């Protein structure tokens, strides 16, 4: 069972439940829930949690469910953060770096090409190095930032999961970074929206790989 967090202001949680539902059972997880037993994976979805007041993701990290998700992740449970979910995980210190307003100051909504980087952890079993994924972005604050010394460490540790394809960096992210993992690789965050790319009817089903990776992460971690 996959749990999809829901904060006041989330807006992609139902799409995430539907997308994860194509490869496993999935249900919503209201932000007050703290009992995650029975869950095999957690998705922190996109949206504008708590209105994105102060900074995107800054307030949602203090919800009771996020504290439970932090414990779940510390015990090795796989967590996938998408867009606002990525911002929440960064603000919570569960992923390195921060997301800043786009260089253009514009909200950007379009299909982008991602390249998997060969990274650590169980998600990589489904997302081998060099794999290209066509997935949409839709965000205002997607400019990934980490200080130079931290970037060097991420590179050395294999924590950079996705980069935007050459020449396609939409928001000014440092090093074209679109997604990263934590040191153990069981927490993955990315700005693009795989839940909006699960059916060829809407342009691409490349996003399914992310949900398969989440569902199969426990087996991949044990292997």
């Amino acid at each position, binding site marked *: 069972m996959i749990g999809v967090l829901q904060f006041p202001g989330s807006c992609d949680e139902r799409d995430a439940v539907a997308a994860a539902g194509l490869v496993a059972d999935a249900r919503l997880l209201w932000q007050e829930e703290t009992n995650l037993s029975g869950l095999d994976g957690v998705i922190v979805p996109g949206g504008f949690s708590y209105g994105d007041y*102060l*900074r995107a993701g*800054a*307030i949602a990290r*203090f919800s009771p469910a996020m504290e439970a998700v932090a414990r779940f992740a510390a015990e090795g449970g796989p967590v996938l953060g998408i867009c606002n979910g990525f911002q929440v995980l960064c*603000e919570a210190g569960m992923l390195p*770096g*921060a997301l*800043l*307003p*786009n*260089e*253009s*100051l514009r909200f950007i909504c379009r299909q982008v090409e991602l390249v998997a980087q060969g990274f650590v952890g169980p998600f990589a079993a489904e997302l081998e190095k060099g794999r290209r994924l066509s997935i949409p972005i839709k965000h205002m604050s997607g400019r990934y*930032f*980490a*200080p130079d010394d931290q970037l060097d460490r991420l590179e050395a540790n294999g924590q950079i999961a996705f980069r935007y394809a050459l020449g396609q960096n939409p928001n*000014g992210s440092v090093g074209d970074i679109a997604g990263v993992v934590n040191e153990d690789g069981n927490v993955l965050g990315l700005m693009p929206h795989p839940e909006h790319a699960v059916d060829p009817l809407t342009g691409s089903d490349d996003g399914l790989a992310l949900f398969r990776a989440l569902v199969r992460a426990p087996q991949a971690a044990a292997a």
Partner: protein
Amino acid sequence: MLIRPKEGILDPQGKAVERALPALGFEGIHDVRVGRLVELEVDDPAKLDSLSEKLLANPLIEDYEIVLDEAPSGNGGGRK
């Protein structure tokens, strides 16, 4: 509490303001940075640093400065 984008981090909001100024006839203005001001009343100012680091500012991307004003009415003058 004054919160600003960290030195060296691109501040597109500041840039946009800077670019708009000449059109209004304001010349000779450079390096515009846009930050945030948070006003709050606290019983124990010792908590301010941890409050800043945990919520009000993100130390990775922002610098903050605490300015204490002892008189709640605001006429006591600021001290850092």
